[in-house]
């Protein structure tokens, strides 16, 4: 029994010693930081002026928190951010939380501890707000991207309904010019994500307004980034509605899959059109090849914008309102210019 009690005591002492050991360093650091913060407050005006004069910031560390780093979209952002940071001589860390909010919270904590100056959080909802708020209180600048919650220093986002309207307008223009307004349309959306639901609603609103003679045959929930859903749903829709001539999707991934299903059914004529958003390479190539993919939307380069606003927010600028990404509609009319660029 004595041995056991001794064992327990030893274990506890070891744990406490270790925590204290780690803690003391951090404590000193905290004290140092507090002093530094006081000094910084005194000289904040001078620093701001200096920053404006010097232009560049040094010893900056950027943390990028992504829901996944396994899709073309997020891999591109990660690579671009890394390249931008390297160019500026900044440190960079990226973490994928795989849609697990608890992993996101731990990653935010680790980023704060390893002294990130800006955390670029591409979270999906407010489940990380408490951790982001805690990070903000420790002096880390929070950049939200693709979502707007209560906690941010700068928020880069898009009006999802507006994006939907743009997709719908592209489809409407094509329906009016190619099909004399007699579009038989299926809209692919998802009800599992509020943003995509808003985008889907925007598509429907734009078609109803610009194409009064078109018929929306069905609005289908194809799920959120479910690989293969575009193919299977399109096969079903083509059987259910032989008159179908237009598919409008919330994203390029499903649109490209739909395109393959349409081609497999032998319907790839000039009178069939698919429209979506994201500007993926496959979508752009298909538009350039005059495939049934007729239009997509490209966002302004995300990573450079992230770095630019990181720099500005670190220099003391404030961005209380959401900053919208610029978008460009890509169709056969301007694809050549775009690809040349």
């Amino acid at each position, binding site marked *: 029994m004595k041995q056991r009690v001794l*064992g327990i005591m030893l274990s506890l002492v070891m744990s406490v010693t270790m925590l204290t050991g780690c803690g003391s360093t951090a404590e000193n650091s*905290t004290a140092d930081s507090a002093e530094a913060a006081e000094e910084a407050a005194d000289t904040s005006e001078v620093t701001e002026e200096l920053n404006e004069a010097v232009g560049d910031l040094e010893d900056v560390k950027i943390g990028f928190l992504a829901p996944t780093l396994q899709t073309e979209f997020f891999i591109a952002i990660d690579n671009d951010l890394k390249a931008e940071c390297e160019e500026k001589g900044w440190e960079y860390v990226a973490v994928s939380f795989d849609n697990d909010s*608890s992993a996101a919270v731990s990653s935010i904590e680790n980023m704060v501890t390893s002294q990130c100056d800006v955390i670029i959080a591409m979270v999906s909802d407010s489940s990380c707000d408490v951790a982001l708020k805690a990070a903000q209180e420790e002096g880390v600048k929070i950049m939200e991207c693709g979502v707007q919650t209560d906690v941010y220093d700068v928020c880069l986002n898009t009006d999802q309904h507006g994006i939907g309207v743009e997709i719908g307008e592209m489809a409407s223009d094509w329906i009016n010019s190619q099909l004399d307004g007699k579009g038989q349309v299926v809209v692919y959306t998802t009800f*599992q994500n509020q943003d995509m639901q808003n985008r889907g609603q925007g598509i429907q609103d734009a078609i109803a307004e610009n194409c009064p003679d078109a018929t929306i045959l069905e609005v289908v929930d194809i799920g959120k980034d479910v690989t293969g859903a575009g193919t299977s749903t399109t096969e079903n829709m083509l059987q259910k509605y032989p008159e179908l001539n237009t598919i409008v999707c919330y994203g390029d991934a499903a649109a490209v899959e739909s395109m393959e299903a349409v081609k497999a059914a032998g319907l790839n004529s000039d009178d069939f059109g698919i429209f979506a958003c994201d500007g993926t390479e496959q979508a752009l190539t298909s538009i350039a090849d005059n495939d049934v993919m007729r239009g997509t939307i490209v966002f302004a380069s995300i990573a450079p914008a992230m770095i630019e606003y990181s720099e500005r927010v670190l220099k003391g600028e404030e961005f209380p309102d959401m900053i919208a990404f610029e978008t460009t509609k890509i169709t056969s009319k301007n694809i050549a210019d775009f690809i040349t660029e």
Partner: protein
Amino acid sequence: MADAFYAASKKIYQIFMKKIKKYVIENKLNIIIWLAFMLILLKNTFLYFEYFFIRQFIIMLFISLGVALEMMSGDFDLSFAAQISGATVIGAYLLKNEINLYVTVLFILLLHILGGAVKSFLMIKLKMPSIIFTLALQMIISKTFLIVSNENNIIIPDKPAYYNNNMFWVLMAALTAVLLLCVHWFLYDTYYGKYCRMLGENTELMEKNGLNCFAASLIIHSFAAVFFTMASLLFIFQTVSGSAYIGSNYLYKVLAALCLGGIGSCNGEGRISGIVAGTVSMVLLIFILTSFNYVNKWETIVEGMIILAGLYMGRIRKTSENYLPNSERNLIEGEGRDL
């Protein structure tokens, strides 16, 4: 008098050194990780490390303790992360609908006990291999709660302010210490604790001896359910939400922590100090990988390698000349009983 004092001191020193040597041998991998962290600490300053470490450590320790109990009893559980995720969905749903916190806790506990009962039934009564049926359970639970939650996080509107409350985490740390003592008491001072390790080691022999394996397994899984409940609640408080994805990242982390801690896969082996040491190592390792931007590319590779190394070292222990089966080790005073 002086000679007696000298002799006593020498004996204490020898016992202490023996313990230290034994600890170093048993925790080689952990010590390497701790030393690596100490070296990094010398060159870098980490802010607020202690707060974040304690939070992450406590959460992972709760899961590790639950899984370790199951593993010691022969249940190599791959469904615990899905079970915890599912519980966060239920918990967040109840709290969102303003159900009392205590009722929610009770509900989550019952859910985990039910999960444990299913696992006990499949393992003991139907003699299914745990690694296969828990894999199936993981898929069933995970997909069911994805459908139930519409793939969304269930956000609790009135945010419980526990996450940034230091007193809450102090209480959690105290509770963790108490629960560690309870596990120690359970494993080494109760029959069911001994049955737990015997179940992991040789279920057939236990049955031949007329012991009720199902009851033992049920009690062990119920005890593990307490830890899973704690983890589920902490996830809910941490994210103020519940989702079928929350906690899913802990599957390999916890298995790696247990391998680092020397918890045998389905052979009744393991010590509480090992669970604690392995968990500390994993929290530090994830922190190091994150700090130096290796986490995405290397985390799962490192965890896989740790699991393989843990299994290999377990194999070496088992084939060594001095190896004693766990049940026999219990008969020797002092062996297998220390923390």
